[in-house]
């Protein structure tokens, strides 16, 4: 076994860490998320330039030959700075579908654009009533000649306001919640019939409700085999979960360090509150929860290439464990910051908010505990 990062991964980490430190300070982030755009396209361009957006793609696909561990390293640094730019939906999700299920033509068309920063994707999988079941779809794609016509409503599509393209899941056959009959499509967001309602999320990102009304797409929009998309969706979302867990680890690390530092500075009864054992032990429990979360994130990341059951068990374990750690660390960090913890002015509250929303992405603690039970 080996828990070391390669020299290249170390360089990626250092480069990103510098970028986040120098250009992604808390005040700059606050300004950006409050702006009408809500993100910083110039940062996106820099990420492309640094090779970050091409990191997890193979060289044959036009990337830099990295993999899941590289995505982990990148997402952890993003988590430390609460970076809002849509690396996960674009590179991990859309990139994942293209990588694992795309035709040569689809790869050719899209991966290069992702790597260069030219295309931004959002992944429209959730529905108002589907909860965390990827097969519980009301969105339909009806065969029409050689193409399809999409109708439906997708909920909380992260990054959609910034996106040029969408990856959409829809039912091409079978009954609601059937495992077969689910398909995946890729299309430009400005395809006629696509409308969005854009909004800000509580953790400072942008998302949309996306509506499809008789949206006609060609056969080239289908990723993978018609009606057999669920296994592909599960694979890609498992990869997304591992990456999200890494992001949460980055955010937890900073939230914990900030809390320890705050407890050194803040005085009560004439002494730093960090000298109170009751708070010390709580910060130790936060630290322990963080280390356990890192371990589960490693496990999930390193098991992504294993057989399906092993992969799913590890990913669900991570989503459960990291979700619980994220909740504990977020809540305790705010508590120990006292009143300052609930103000907009202090960074800690923003870490808390991101760590809170983390749980609802790609299945919460209860959902993944159920999946773990079902696989055990």
């Amino acid at each position, binding site marked *: *076994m*080996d*828990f*070391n*990062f390669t020299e290249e991964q170390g360089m990626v980490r250092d480069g990103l860490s510098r970028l986040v430190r120098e250009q992604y300070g808390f005040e700059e982030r606050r300004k950006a998320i409050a702006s009408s755009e809500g993100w910083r396209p110039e940062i996106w361009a820099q990420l492309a330039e640094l090779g970050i957006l091409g990191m997890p793609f193979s060289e044959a696909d036009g990337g830099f030959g990295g993999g899941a*561990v590289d995505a982990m390293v990148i997402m952890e640094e993003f988590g430390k700075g609460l970076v809002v730019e849509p690396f996960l939906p674009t590179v991990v999700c859309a990139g994942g579908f293209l990588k694992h299920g795309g035709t040569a033509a689809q790869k050719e068309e899209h991966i290069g654009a992702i790597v260069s920063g030219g295309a931004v994707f959002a992944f429209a999988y959730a529905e108002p009533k589907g909860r965390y079941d990827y097969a519980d779809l009301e969105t339909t794609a009806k065969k029409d000649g050689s193409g399809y016509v999409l109708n439906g409503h997708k909920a909380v599509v992260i990054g959609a306001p910034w996106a040029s393209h969408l990856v959409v899941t829809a039912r091409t056959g079978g009954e609601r919640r059937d495992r077969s009959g689910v398909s995946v499509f890729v299309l430009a967001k400005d395809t006629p019939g696509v409308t969005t309602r854009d909004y800000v999320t509580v953790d400072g990102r942008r998302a949309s409700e996306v509506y499809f009304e008789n949206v006609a797409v060609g056969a080239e929009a289908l990723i993978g085999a018609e009606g057999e998309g669920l296994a592909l969706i599960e694979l890609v979302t498992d990869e997304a979960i591992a990456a999200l867990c890494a992001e949460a680890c980055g955010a937890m690390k900073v939230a914990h360090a900030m809390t*320890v530092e705050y*407890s*050194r500075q803040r005085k009560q009864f004439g002494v730093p509150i*960090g*000298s109170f*054992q009751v708070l*010390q*032990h709580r*910060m*130790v*429990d936060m*630290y*322990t929860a963080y*280390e*356990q*979360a*890192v*371990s*589960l994130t*490693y*496990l999930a*990341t*390193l*098991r992504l290439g294993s057989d399906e059951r092993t992969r799913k068990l*590890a990913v*669900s*374990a991570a989503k*459960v*464990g990291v979700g619980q750690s994220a909740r504990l660390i977020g809540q305790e960090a705010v508590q120990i910051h006292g009143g300052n913890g609930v103000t907009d002015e202090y960074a800690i509250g923003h870490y808390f908010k991101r760590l809170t929303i983390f749980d609802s992405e790609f299945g919460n603690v209860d959902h993944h*505990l*159920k999946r*773990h*039970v079902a696989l*055990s």
Partner: protein
Amino acid sequence: MNLEFTPEEQAFREEVRAFIAENYPKHLADFGMREDMAREDFLAWHKVLGKKGWSVPAWPVEYGGTGWTPTQRYIWSEENARINAVMPLPFGVSMVGPVIYTFGSEEQKAKHLPGIRSGEVWWCQGYSEPGAGSDLASLKTTAVRDGDHYVINGQKTWTTLAQYADWGFFLCRTDPTAKQQEGISFILVDMKTPGVEVKPIKLLDGGYEVNETWLTDVRVPVENLVGQENKGWTYAKFLLAHERSGIAGVARSKRGIEKLREIATHETLDGQPLIKDFDFAKKVSQLEIDLAALEITELRTLAGEQAGKGPGPESSILKIKGTEIQQRLTELTLEAVGTYSAPYMGGVSNDNGSNEHPVGPDYAQHAAATYFNMRKTSIYGGSNEIQRNIITKMILGL
């Protein structure tokens, strides 16, 4: 990064597995640690390992260690846990042994190390006192120099398995005027010396695992002092750091969860196997998830050790999470057993001692006793509160 073992490590695992299959005493199969074990049960496997040269794997090779890497040692403990083997007790192997070969005289090494390796000499630890548990440094037992002897007076407690001990290592105050942590010495005592009296303490589980040890005018030759007089605290801390490594008990807990699942397929709820009940299965999964996290955390620590970092304060995480998981596991096992957790099977073995057929299924026999017994794990070896204090100081810097 990868989680796979190397082909060499895999081969080592095969070798170890074959050796265990061939040599582990059959009557102790899946025995673990029980409240009804006899002295010979504890020592049987240790003696086999002593002959093979595997009883003290972590020691330096010159003192009889194996030269195994930390990963090989981990594989070794995993393979033993797979069959729930009775492992050599830590008092000689992981506690006093390393203190003697690190700080002891040549005479002490020659006299004591062979008996620890072979499993012929049983050691006990005289650290805790009635008024000094987690606050170890406030100990009161005194050793007063009288010619070429120390005269020891005082009372120790929680002396684990001292009823079988040939030798004990004791912390005694040799300079009552010095500050608390100074003026303590580390002294080896032959338990047959006049004035040493061991009184068993009956525990919740009905067993006698610990004792009160009274020392009244016990005369011990000065050559039994380890290292320097009044420097015992240094050796005590060294020993505690050794004690904490390997305390996570991951492999043993894995085996415990397997057994728990077995039990829960036999037990029923609403006419269904208990394991099909979501509420119960969820608790098992949660435990498995926490254990997976602990396992990787331990492997990360091992990897650090392999790269030359000694067992650091991170081992406190292993102690806290490891013992919490062990306790929850025994709690869940008790819960799984249900009604038959209640019958009291006595503090001595029913399988050997009595003709009466035990009440309830076999797997229920020790569930309650084990649960009661495992409450100790968050208290001993530096309570989990003390571990949190260590992380506070050493890692958080508060």
